[in-house]
Structure formats: structure tokens, C-alpha cells
């Protein structure tokens, strides 16, 4: 219905406006001109082909994680664990990639690596998923814990032989397992770390937003997220659908490692890709589960990330995290207002179209 779309658009606009305001205040506090800094931010990102490439590079893992969080959210679950699922998947494919023969063809190596990444992420998400499904333990607390455990496992894995002697990074993965950089096809992107994992992300995005709602599992997860009581009354297995949603979400979060390990570094080191899982939450909140929304939100946060570097000489790039936080809060506040408004109207006069 029109009014719902308007309300939704309003909270997005509010979020962006609040983000801009926060940005302006921070810049002003540093004694700089907001307009000038905004110019610098845009110039440093979309102003050059290289900058645009870097934005895409930064946006790719964020997009993966945004999709992952979205898949959880539509089943009513908060997957705070995308961060850890990505980390574990990175460790696994770093190990798998390094053990592949040097001559393994890409046609074999890439799907194998992607499969391993998805399975690793899914298995890591299965821990909180089973805790939730079998025991009813809240997924937020358990995924916070699995994130921290994943962090510690990095040190364990690197310490126990994943790291090359005398370094804190894993060995290079086989050449065939690497995803080529975009500069190989678009010379103007020279120097940018943007790589073909972005196409993987886009395919996953389409699967998640177009195919997934049309699958039986995806549709039932959505219905369970909206009203578990009614679903249980009609004999849909609610715990099972919830566990599945978290596991699929974990698989997508695991795929984010393709952007970092396979597309960027070609090996894994501690901290690679850190923060993408949390930014993914912001992307999912802002992207409203729409294909274009998720892309734009990922690009926005990618721009802030890369733009922070461009501004670093004037204001600390970490201030972009504050802007992100303000955007998240403003969007959530807008949503809460919309919810309260809708709850007061038990039966809207006009009928609304659905958005599964």
C-alpha cells in the first residue's frame, strides 16, 4: 500500500539525513567545512575510476554479510554472528586453497572454494541454530559468543600450522583458486582491489531476493518470522525453519570470505575483513530486503569506508563509524514510529500488497 511504502521511504530518508547531519557535526567539530569534506569524500570515491573500484571492493564483503543478515531477519532472527561465520569460512578456505595443487584449474578450484566457504559458514552458524531450535537459546547471545570464539580460533589455527613459518598469515592459496581482479578486464581500475567476487555477491543477492522467497523453505521461513503461532497451528515446524534460516544465513556470510581471501589477499591473516559482519547488519536494516536497497546500502557503507580514507588527513576515518551508527539508530527509530503507527490502525482501510 502507498502509505506503507511512504512510511518505509521516510525512515530511510530520515536515516540518511541523520547520517549527513552527524557527518556535518563531526567535520565541523574538527574545524573543517562540511561541504568541502563532502566534496573530498565524493571525489576520493566516485571521483575517479580507482576510487569507484575501491568502493566496490569495500562494498563486496559488506553486501555478502548484508544478504546474510537479511535472510535471518526475514525469519525474525538476528544473526549477529555473520562476523564469526565469515572468519571461520576464511580460515577454512585459506587452508583448502593452500592445499590445492598449483595447477588446479580455476573451473574446479573456484566452485570448490566457494562451496567450502558456504559450508564452513553454515556449520559455524549451525551451533547457535541448533541451540535455538533444540533448546530455545536466544540467537543474539549465542552468536556474540561464537563470534568471539571464532576470533580466538584464528590465533589457534594460525598458531597450529596454518601460518607460514615466522609470519602471521597463511600460505598463498593456489593460483586457480583466486578470483581475478576487475583491473584485468577494465584497465582504468588499475590499482583497485575490486575483484570478480562482486559478481558472486550479485548472483547470491538475486538468489536471496528473487529465488529464495519463491522457494518453499524461504517462503515458510518468512511466514514463521511474521507469525510463528499461526504457522505452528497449521503444523509448520517452526524450530526447524528457524534453524534453517540461521544456517543459510551463515552460509552466505561464509561466502563473504570469497571477497577477501580469494579476491583480495590470496591468503588469510588475522583481522582480514573484520567489521563486515556488523556493517552487514546496517546494510540489511537500511536495504529493506530489496535487491536495489541492499546494493545501494552496501555501496553507501562502502563509500563511507573508502571515503574515510580519503578524509583521513583532515578528520579521522573512524568518524565514519559514528556516521554509520547514527544511520542505524535513525532508521530503527523511524521503523519503531512506523510500527507504533501501524499498530494503532488495526484495519487499514486500503489493502496492502505483499513483499515476501
Amino acid at each position, binding site marked *: 500500500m502507498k502509505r506503507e511504502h511512504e512510511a518505509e521511504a521516510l525512515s530511510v530518508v530520515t536515516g540518511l539525513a541523520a547520517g549527513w547531519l552527524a557527518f556535518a557535526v*563531526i567535520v565541523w*567539530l*574538527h574545524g573543517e567545512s562540511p561541504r568541502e569534506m563532502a566534496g573530498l569524500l565524493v571525489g576520493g570515491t566516485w571521483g575517479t575510476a580507482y576510487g569507484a573500484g575501491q568502493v566496490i571492493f569495500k562494498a563486496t564483503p559488506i553486501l555478502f554479510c548484508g544478504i546474510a543478515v537479511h535472510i535471518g531477519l526475514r525469519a525474525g532472527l*538476528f544473526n*549477529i554472528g555473520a562476523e564469526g561465520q565469515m572468519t571461520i569460512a576464511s580460515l577454512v578456505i585459506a587452508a583448502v586453497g593452500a592445499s590445492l595443487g598449483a595447477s588446479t584449474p580455476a573451473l574446479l578450484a573456484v566452485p570448490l572454494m566457494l562451496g567450502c566457504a558456504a559450508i564452513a559458514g553454515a556449520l559455524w552458524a549451525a*551451533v547457535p541454530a541448533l*541451540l535455538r531450535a533444540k*533448546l*530455545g*537459546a*536466544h540467537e*543474539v*547471545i*549465542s552468536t*556474540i*559468543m*561464537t563470534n*568471539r*570464539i571464532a*576470533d*580466538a*580460533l*584464528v*590465533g*589457534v*589455527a*594460525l*598458531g*597450529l600450522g596454518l601460518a607460514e613459518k615466522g609470519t602471521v598469515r597463511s600460505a598463498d592459496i593456489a593460483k586457480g583458486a583466486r578470483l581475478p581482479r576487475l583491473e584485468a578486464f577494465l584497465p582504468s581500475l588499475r590499482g583497485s582491489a575490486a575483484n570478480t567476487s562482486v559478481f558472486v555477491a550479485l548472483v547470491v543477492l538475486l538468489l536471496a531476493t528473487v529465488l529464495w522467497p519463491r522457494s518453499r523453505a524461504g517462503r515458510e521461513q518468512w511466514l514463521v518470522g511474521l507469525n510463528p503461532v499461526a504457522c505452528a497451528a497449521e503444523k509448520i515446524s517452526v524450530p526447524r525453519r528457524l534453524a534453517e534460516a540461521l544456517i543459510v544465513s551463515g552460509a552466505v556470510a561464509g561466502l563473504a570470505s570469497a571477497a577477501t581471501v580469494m579476491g583480495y589477499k590470496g591468503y588469510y591473516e588475522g583481522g582480514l575483513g573484520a567489521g563486515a559482519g*556488523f556493517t552487514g*547488519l546496517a546494510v540489511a*536494516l537500511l536495504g529493506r530486503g530489496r535487491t536495489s536497497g541492499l546494493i545501494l546500502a552496501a555501496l553507501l557503507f562502502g563509500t563511507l569506508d573508502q571515503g574515510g580514507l580519503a578524509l583521513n588527513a583532515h*578528520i*579521522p576515518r*573512524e*568518524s*565514519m*563509524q*559514528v556516521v*554509520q*551508527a*547514527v544511520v*542505524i*539508530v535513525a532508521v*530503527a*527509530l523511524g*521503523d*519503531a514510529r512506523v*510500527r*507504533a503507527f501501524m499498530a494503532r490502525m488495526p484495519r487499514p482501510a486500503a489493502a496492502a500488497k505483499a513483499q515476501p
Partner: protein
Amino acid sequence: MSALAAIFSASMLAQTLGASVPYICAAQGGVVSERSGVVNIALEGTLLSGALAAVAVAHATGSALLGVLGGAVAGGAIGMLHALLVVKGRIDAIVSGIALNLAAAGGTRVVLRALYDSSSNSPSIEGFRFGATGAGGGAMLVRAVASPLFIASVAASIAVMFVLARTRFGLRLRACGESPFAAASAGVDVDRTRVAAVCLGGALAGLGGAALSFEQHQFQSGMSGGRGFIALAAVIVAGWRPGRAALACVAFAALDALEGSLQGESRALHDVVAMLPYAATLFALAALSLRKGAWVAAPPAGLGRHPD
């Protein structure tokens, strides 16, 4: 206990007690907030902000006491923000917590750069000057126990227990956490009680932040390093009870001390020790859900629910 005592030398005990202060303060903050019914995963960011504020105030005024106060005030402000967003703004407590952690991580760096033109650490401060000098285990232990912040953390734990059990505010706070509906029908202003509780909890966690940076005699960016989440874990393992939470914090701090004593050992071993608190919490969650064993208690029944 005797086995533990045998392992723990006086210096290990001293390190454990020293490391436990931020955990204990943050955990008490978590207890106060969650017992009132507001999920608080913003403890991490609150610790970090408190740590910076404490150093900044101490550096500017030259007074350690004022610094500690500054840390508590900053923590209270974050708590207030969290409370207003969740209780008045009705946004999800998880979303608010994540945003506040993010804002604290970025914001402290921004302030650090603005104040001291550094992206990694503040100038060093003296902190509290007290007690015995010397490098022996006994002297360390005396210093740890006599530390004003250690005493403050113990006092805070006792105060939280006392306030929850014996005061009107504590009674109402618990009622809000257990059943916001029942509390509201008994004439309790649930929203106001919760805002006060979360604000107070933030101040306690801010105190923990002060302890963190005073221990290091400076602020380092990202120095909370997951301690807020460990404190949250302690709260859960302790079944949301202040006394047990303090004990859980000491146990987790002992792991810190153990990790510190592993110098020269492989990094893998360090990290195995580092993950133990989180693994313990996962087990506690599982046990909690199974309702097996009396050693884990259920969370407040009204956690995350609004009165209407």
C-alpha cells in the same frame, strides 16, 4: 579450591584481582540493566568510552578521582542514550547496542585524535598512587587489594546486591524486569525505572572503563578488547545475580592472568585460553535452556518486553 590455591601464586592472584576490576564493574552494570528488563550488549562500548573519558579528565585536571568520576559519567551518558532509544524510542535493544558499540569504537578514536592528535593512544597518566612498592608477589597482592578501584568494584558489587534486595528502587527494578505488566498495574512507572536502571548500569560500566585505562596508565584505542562481552557472558553464566556475576568475573580474570603467564608459549595456547569464557557461556546457555542443574538461573522473565 585447594587445587586452585596451589596453582595460584600470590602474584597470579594479584594479577587476577587487578584484571577482574573492569569485568566486575561492567558485569554489575549489565546486571542492573538486564534485571530491569533491558538487554545491554552496549557494555563493550560503554567500557571503552569510560576508559577514554577517565583518562581525558584525569589528564586535564590532574586528579585521578575526578578521572574516575568522568569515566562513570561518560558511561552513565551512554547508558542513558541506550535507555532512551530502547525504552522511549522503542527500538530493538540489540540494534541500539550494536550502534552504540560502533559509535564508541569510532567516537573514541575521533576524540583521541582531537584531544591528543594520536590515533592509537593517549599520553600517560599517573592514576592512583598508593600502597606498598616492590616487585614481589606479596607486594603486588597488597597493591591489588588496596587499589581504590578494586575496592570500588567490590563495593559496587555489594551495593548492587543490597540495592536490588533491600531498597524500593531495587524492588521496582526487579519487578520491571520480571513482569513489566505486573509492575505497571501495581503503579510502578516502568519506563522511568528502566531508564534510571540502565543509566546507573552504564555508570558502573564506565567505572570499569576507568579501571581499564588506569591499569594501563593510558588509553589505547580499542582497549576494551571484548571485555564488555565477557562481562555480559559473566552475567549470563551467573544467572543475572550480582554476587555470582562478580565471582564469574574473577574466574574469567584468572584466565586472563593465566594467559598473561603463558609468555613464551605458543599463540595458539593463548587463544585457547581466551575463548574459554565464551565457550563456558555457550554451555551455560545450553544448560539454561535445558533447565538442568540449579547452578544456572533463568533470565528475568520480562527481559526485552515492554509493559503494553
